[in-house]
């Protein structure tokens, strides 16, 4: 079976700087949750950016569903929107809009009519435990609630792969647990999850843990 997303012999560096990734290989299957751990500056975010088609590798190739990703920026943009959803460490929301509006964005961008998008957004907010806050302006929500809105937005449009970059990086322990519960509860069974994290409690929930050392991935026992 083809991996949802695969990186083959990926090398990457910024400009003429040192290599960040050195011949890295990675496969994440459909429905699989993979954690990438490593110290700050080890290249975790770069790895996610390449996997999510935000950055083109200096060398190497990315496959989606077994098909190589073309070089055309237009087609890469389209594939990115179709395949991936992101959860970032920093909370990204339209601050002047409601939780429901923010969650519906990913659906509206895929052409779902507003009525249906709103209905699905409410369901996604329900899955992350925010059903009662759907109509609240996001400025009234706590940090943990905001991150859960971002998770709801990411999973609402049923992407094939969710990329999470330090999703609990700015949250306390208790809030992190609620956010992780939300992420695992809202994710569809066939949605792959690739998460970059320092947080052991995030890694423990994943099917595989990979450590990024000197630009290469080393698999750790779970």
């Amino acid at each position, binding site marked *: 079976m083809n991996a949802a997303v695969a990186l083959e012999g990926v090398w990457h560096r910024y400009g003429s700087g040192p290599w960040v990734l050195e011949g890295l290989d990675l496969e994440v299957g459909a429905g699989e949750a993979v954690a990438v751990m490593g110290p700050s500056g080890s290249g975790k975010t770069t790895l996610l950016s390449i996997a999510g088609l*935000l950055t083109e590798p200096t060398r190497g190739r990315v496959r989606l569903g077994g098909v190589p990703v073309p070089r055309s920026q237009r087609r890469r943009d389209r594939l990115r929107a179709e395949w991936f959803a992101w959860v970032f460490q920093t909370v990204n929301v339209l601050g002047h*809009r409601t939780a429901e509006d923010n969650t519906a964005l990913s659906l*509206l*961008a895929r052409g779902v*009519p*507003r009525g249906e998008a709103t209905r699905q957004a409410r369901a996604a907010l329900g899955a992350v435990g925010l059903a009662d806050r759907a109509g609240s302006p996001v400025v009234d929500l706590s940090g943990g609630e905001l991150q859960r809105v971002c998770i709801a937005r990411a999973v609402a449009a049923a992407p094939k792969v969710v990329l999470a*970059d330090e999703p609990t990086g700015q949250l306390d322990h208790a809030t992190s647990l609620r956010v992780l519960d939300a992420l695992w509860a809202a994710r569809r069974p066939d949605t792959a999850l690739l998460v970059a994290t320092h947080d052991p409690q995030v890694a423990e929930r994943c099917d595989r843990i990979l450590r990024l050392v000197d630009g290469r991935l080393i698999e750790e026992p779970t």
Partner: protein
Amino acid sequence: MGRWRLRDLAVDAVRNVAGTPARSLLLGVVAAGVVGGLAFTELAFTQGLLGFQASFAAKGGHVVVASNDDGLPAARCAALAATPGITGAAAVEPGAAVETDVAPGTLFQTGRITAGGLRLFTAGTPPEVAEAADRWILGAAAADELGLEPGMWLSIDGESRQVGAVVDTEDRNPQIARWILTIAPPVGDVTQCWVEYAPGAQSGRIELLDTIFADTGDNLVVRPWIRLDEFARNPIEELATRPQRNAWVAAGLLLAALWWLATWFRRAHIGLYRAVGTSPTALLILGFVEAALPLIVGAAAGTLWATAAWAAGTGGFPDPDQARIAVRAAASTLLVALAAAPLLWPLTGRGSVAQQLKDR
């Protein structure tokens, strides 16, 4: 995978505008100030030109005088009044200097003029010439010196007539302020033919009279009543070269720049739209609608404010031509701003999404 529906994109833009009232209000107020200021400037400038043109016309700026000591046919002169582009024509014949029974020893100039011709000397308030037929028409200075008013009797060289009208010629032709005139039929020859053209009839004024009276001999002189070279102002050229004629470009770009500045502080929002799969075209539409709402409302309010302020200051509404110029400047400014303002949205969307999402 589908893409944003246009209606949903517009609704999202409207909600973004409504959700950020301070930013929207600021842009609207600045748009009102910039567009309104430009509209007001145009109204004030064109008012100056219109004032000059009115004064020019009142002083006889559109009058051309043909004169020939050998004589001009009075009938041909009077008939010019019916020519398109000519608002009045009068044959004028100065007479002898005379004494009156009221003021013996003081000489006054006499003259005769064809019916309808007095309006050429008294712009704005022509007397009822029909009622003044067979009566004396006195210049204001002559009437003052003689102590006469309409209805009184005056005898000149034994010929007694009632005073039919006293005409104030100070603005247009102060030379005849001491004249005593009679209305005469357009027969025989006269030495002067006064013709007033419509303001729009700019060219061929002198040439027309040259042609009409070409057969009257070599002593024919045709000249404008007010020599144009005595007036340095040329309203048409002034309008075409006014300093603010291209200000709509700068004003529009100024408004667009303000929007660009606001956009710069919204890079994270743009990154978010991109992260969920919004295309550059959809971003352009989103940016356009978000800019259009405060800009259109602000520009309309500014234009209305300028008109109201101008009307309050002058006590009247703008002339249609003035209004057209002011509205054109306002609309041009708005169009430039609308065309340029959204451009930064898709341009901003060219960098790294991840980096944009971190920008605050």
